[in-house]
């Protein structure tokens, strides 16, 4: 292992790393979970109303899309809560900061509300930076207090952000008004009207297929578009699905980046201090670690990743407004559920938790309801719970089922609750939370060979036994 480590350190190629990942089983484990989810949803689609390969591909693409988005945010939260024990329940707020900063930076100067008209990359970097700064702003006073206070401050922050964005006083405002040196800068949140983001991360993806990515209909296809799109169309996959698939691939790339970054942070002396802070901050302090700096740094990185996750999540629609569910506290709750399912502290668990939440809990009920609605007419579903229950007395279950199917998204909460209760009873650490991920950049059991001849008893397996 030691030699392999050293080789990886000196010449780390992407293929090496991927093959190492597969060998160690984590990439394999994630692939296995995704395979299972795909198989299940293929069955759902076949049983449901929309059939054909096109329907299956669209469903699997949607599942992968949501999995990737949740995986990114769960990983970011894992850095806060799983690694360091920082109870951040304002994830949605930091996502909102990232998204709105991105929007303000990239929206055209003449738009309504206007932005700065900067390019895509500036929006992404700026969004991450401002989310990180917001994280520092929230964290600096709160991190000195006990953990519960951070929780209160973060959830309050996320609501303040959301409600501020709804406020009409921020709808459109001018910075540096009347200052001679700096030109006036008109910005705005758009308040309830929302803000449009014509420049967003899907544009580079679309430009792969269309000559005019801002408005595909008005331009023509590129060479790639002319080859790929008809090929997919011939098996019944729609153009929009192909574009979404490509965007999902980009998202998967970001998940890999998040994962590698977190693993590096975790498997290092830095990560060791984070782990010690999670376990007992006073001990970490007494061992000479200035934990406040570690906490602030890690909080800022996590918030930057949440901002990036928010940008990739929300801007792809080209429009957002503060009523979007992405910015509600509920979203934070979902991300926490996914992390709890996967197991706090484990990166692989975070990805798997994201996948299972996005597929089974988030999308699953919708697909199941579609299957049932094929057989049960929901058009005449009763509008109240009482009206749905009434006919049960006369053994007529159809109104009750129809009512249930119409309200399937509410039923999702019941499902989430049941899953949480079962998990807390059966596996409180989540699916992979029990795993030992050693906080070190090297294999601590692997000692230098020169030591062995000198002290034969000590080098006797280096404590591997017992």
């Amino acid at each position: 292992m030691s030699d392999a480590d050293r080789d990886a350190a000196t010449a780390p190629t992407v293929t090496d790393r991927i093959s190492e990942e597969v060998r160690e089983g984590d990439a394999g484990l994630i692939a296995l979970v995704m395979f299972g989810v795909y198989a299940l949803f293929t069955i759902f689609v076949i049983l449901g109303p929309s059939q054909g390969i096109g329907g299956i591909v669209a469903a699997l693409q949607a599942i992968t899309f949501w999995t990737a988005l949740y995986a990114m945010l769960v990983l970011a939260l894992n850095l806060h809560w799983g690694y360091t024990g920082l109870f951040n329940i304002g994830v949605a707020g930091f996502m909102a900061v990232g998204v709105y900063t991105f929007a303000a930076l990239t929206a055209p100067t003449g738009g309504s509300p206007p932005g700065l008209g900067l390019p895509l990359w500036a929006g992404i970097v700026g969004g991450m930076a401002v989310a990180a700064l917001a994280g520092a702003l929230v964290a600096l006073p709160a991190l000195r207090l006990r953990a519960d206070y951070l929780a209160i401050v973060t959830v309050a922050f996320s609501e303040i952000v959301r409600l501020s964005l709804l406020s009409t006083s921020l709808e459109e405002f001018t910075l540096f008004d009347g200052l001679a040196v700096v030109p006036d800068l008109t910005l705005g949140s758009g308040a309830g009207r929302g803000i449009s983001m014509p420049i967003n991360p899907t544009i580079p993806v679309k430009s792969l297929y269309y000559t005019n990515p801002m408005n595909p209909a008005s331009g023509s296809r590129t060479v790639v578009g002319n080859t790929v799109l008809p090929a997919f169309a011939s098996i019944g996959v729609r153009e929009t699905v192909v574009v979404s698939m490509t965007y999902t691939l980009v998202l998967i790339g970001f998940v890999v980046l998040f994962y590698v970054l977190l693993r590096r942070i975790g498997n290092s002396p830095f990560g060791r201090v984070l782990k010690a802070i999670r376990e007992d901050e006073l001990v970490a302090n007494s061992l000479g670690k200035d934990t406040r700096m570690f906490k602030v740094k890690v909080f800022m990185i996590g918030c930057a990743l949440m901002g990036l996750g928010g940008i990739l999540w929300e801007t792809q629609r080209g429009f957002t407004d503060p009523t979007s569910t992405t910015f509600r506290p509920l979203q934070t709750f979902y991300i926490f559920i996914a992390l709890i399912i996967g197991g706090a502290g484990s990166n692989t668990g975070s990805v798997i938790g994201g996948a299972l939440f996005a597929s089974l809990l988030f999308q699953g009920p919708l697909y199941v309801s579609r299957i049932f609605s094929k057989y049960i007419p929901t058009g005449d579903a009763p509008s109240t719970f009482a009206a749905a229950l009434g006919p049960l007395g006369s053994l007529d279950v159809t109104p009750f089922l129809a009512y249930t199917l119409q309200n399937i998204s509410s039923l999702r909460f019941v499902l989430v609750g049941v899953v949480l209760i079962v998990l807390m009873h059966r596996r409180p650490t989540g699916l992979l939370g029990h795993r030992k991920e050693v906080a070190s950049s090297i294999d601590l059991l692997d000692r230098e060979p020169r030591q062995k001849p000198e002290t034969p008893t000590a080098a006797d397996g280096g404590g591997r036994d017992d």
Partner: protein
Amino acid sequence: MTEDGTTVEGSGETATADRSDEAETEQAVDSGESARRELDAESASLVVEDLRKSFGGIDAVDGVSFSVERGSLTGLIGPNGAGKSTTFNLITGVHEPDAGRVAFEGETLTGMRTSSIANSGLVRTFQIARELEEMTVLENLMLSPRGQSGETLTNAVLPGLRGSVRDEERELRETVWETLELFEIDHLAEERAGNLSGGQRKLLELARALMLDPTMMLLDEPFAGVNPTLEEKLLDRIHELREEGLTFLLVEHDIDLIMEHCEHVIVMHQGQVLAEGPPAEIRSNDRVIDAYLGEDV
């Protein structure tokens, strides 16, 4: 020191102390103080001056002054609630003193952060072993060493810099294994610290503190819950380290142990220093016997 009359009056139980002993006590205290003054000038490693801390009206530490000679094994005893642990917390910056000053190797520690105090070479252990439970014994020890370059985020993450972090970690790994062998807990290397027995935790805690390469150690009841064999082992280790030049301040309930192993003993009672001096002197100090031995043992 002003604890003479007030201490006796202030405590219900010791108020019965025989007044005729007071003259002797006075002497013992005085000799302790003069000893401290000498230490201040020359060979004191740790100097504590008039330290005070109250929690909600209770004076947990009420004007404590003492000093610890460099290279010595000094004992700090006193009944429960005498303020020993609070004194430790004040010295190590866990609590901020209301008044008073702590100096270590000529440097004022008062107002410094706990982490900076540890990095200055003054390292403590805890009364109830505080292990980083979810971390393995190896990780516990790897955490300690000072100035690890990999604790800087960029070094930990960026590909070009990570290589040197790995090299550093390899060297540390060797030291860690040597320490584990020294403490004879190398067979537990991979074990979660939370799974260790009470005695093993104490060993781990001492080993972990040693990885910081301290010049002085504050040990808060290092033998509590430790079986006699292990206790012997720990004491041997402490004496060895002392010969290598380390200074120890030891809080302990077992008076016989303190009297046997320490060359200087400080007795605390109700937040104040009751007496200070060599074991023989303390043993024959009536006030100590009344206040401490009489009621607690």
